[in-house]
């Protein structure tokens, strides 16, 4: 068999040209999923196109419009930003849950999306924060909401010659906060049995005026649950609202039975995590931690 090439383009057009020239080549960011899949024989690329030499892919900025996050910025580097953690604690806590310190030194939020695991931690908090994926390809750029990016386990909307370049997260509105919780049997180094992200906006009286709820690991792709959000809107997160949100989340969950959990258990936990994550987001929006 012929040797596998390594390419390190320094611009987005160069990366697109390399991908067009060789459809069997694969884009690599941190490589923490890709190289494991490669060594296991699950992926057999003809070349690795390392996008980390493209400046826009490995930097991020936070301005009045929000976060512009290069798809290959490592979770560890992003997590060192105090401003990032202050504005999006839910995205930050999801990113900090992925793998080990070592894995976070390589793995990126862009890679987490492109790997398209049903149990991925960061897509859900990105979704509740109205984040968009900016995709570059032979026909130019396009932008789609994160909830439309993953279409099946391991599959995304990316077409031949396209790759994810940036994730854009709008700045939260006033009195808005997010939270992410996941259940794992171990406290560290594990994969979600269920994950739940919530974002809430309150008015000055503490009444919820806008909400987003998304679930991980309960369906082939992340699940946005508008019924759970509706249950929270108009309330001060009283017991009735939380119970209705939890029931809506359990009802929206379409999990499988596997070694990490059963269908019945995952449905139940989807409700429990929704209730708890909503309470954390509410407390944060009111100025607490």
């Amino acid at each position: 068999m012929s040797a596998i090439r390594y390419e390190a383009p320094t611009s987005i057009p160069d990366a697109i040209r390399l991908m067009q020239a060789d459809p069997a080549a694969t884009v690599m960011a941190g490589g923490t999923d890709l190289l494991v899949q490669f060594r296991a024989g699950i992926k057999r690329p003809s070349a690795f196109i390392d996008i980390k030499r493209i400046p826009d892919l490995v930097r991020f900025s936070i301005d009045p419009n929000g976060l512009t996050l290069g798809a290959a910025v490592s979770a560890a580097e992003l997590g060192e930003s105090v401003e990032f953690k202050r504005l999006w604690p839910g995205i930050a806590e999801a990113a900090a849950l992925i793998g080990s310190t070592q894995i976070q030194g390589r793995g990126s939020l862009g890679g987490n999306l492109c790997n398209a695991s049903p149990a991925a931690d960061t897509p859900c908090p990105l979704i509740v924060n109205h984040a968009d994926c900016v995709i570059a390809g032979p026909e130019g750029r396009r932008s789609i909401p994160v909830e439309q990016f993953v279409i099946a386990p391991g599959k995304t909307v990316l077409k031949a010659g396209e790759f994810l370049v940036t994730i854009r997260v709008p700045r939260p509105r006033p009195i808005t906060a997010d939270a992410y919780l996941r259940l794992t049997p171990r406290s560290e180094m594990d994969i979600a049995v269920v994950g739940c992200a919530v974002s809430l906006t309150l008015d000055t009286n503490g009444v919820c005026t806008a909400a987003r709820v998304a679930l991980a690991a309960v369906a082939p792709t992340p699940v946005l649950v508008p019924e759970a959000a509706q249950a929270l809107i108009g309330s001060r997160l009283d017991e009735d609202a939380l119970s209705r949100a939890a029931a809506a989340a359990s009802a929206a969950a379409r999990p499988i039975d596997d070694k990490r959990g059963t269908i019945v258990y995952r449905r139940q936990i989807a409700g429990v995590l929704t209730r708890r994550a909503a309470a954390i987001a509410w407390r944060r929006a009111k100025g607490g931690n």
Partner: protein
Amino acid sequence: MVTEVSRIHVDTTINSEPVEFLCDGSQSLLSALRDEVGLTGTKEGCSTGDCGACSILLDGRLVPSCLVLAAEAQGRSVTTIEGIAQDGHLHPVQQQFLQHAALQCGICTPGFIVAAKALLDAIPNPTETEARYWLAGNLCRCTGYDKIIRAVMDAAAETQKATV
């Protein structure tokens, strides 16, 4: 038809020294360090990023060298276990590993020491909980974790004392 692709030439810095080596496109940095450069202190455990035995610093950041391609090292700065002692003096983490006998077979030790050094660089005075979470990706199958954590906490205390 078999196409012979020439090997990739990499110019890099390892433990503050300029180093050149040849590698294949899919070769890991772990493999290049051990088999091309001859720095065998970095160990191979799982080669899937789960065990931490191959931990190195890449441009100062803690990473699993099994999940870094060797060609990525071009122009970067790599620190391995061989570069942790300075001018013949063991790093406080190394000294405390000896003091506490925080190893048995030793396969995990280089990874633990590199990871613990990175911890103390990032958080000079960690709580035990912070140390345990930071090192959660380093697995030890014989000594267990308690002596290792004691060694790391004492190294932190010693470093703090030295800087006061």
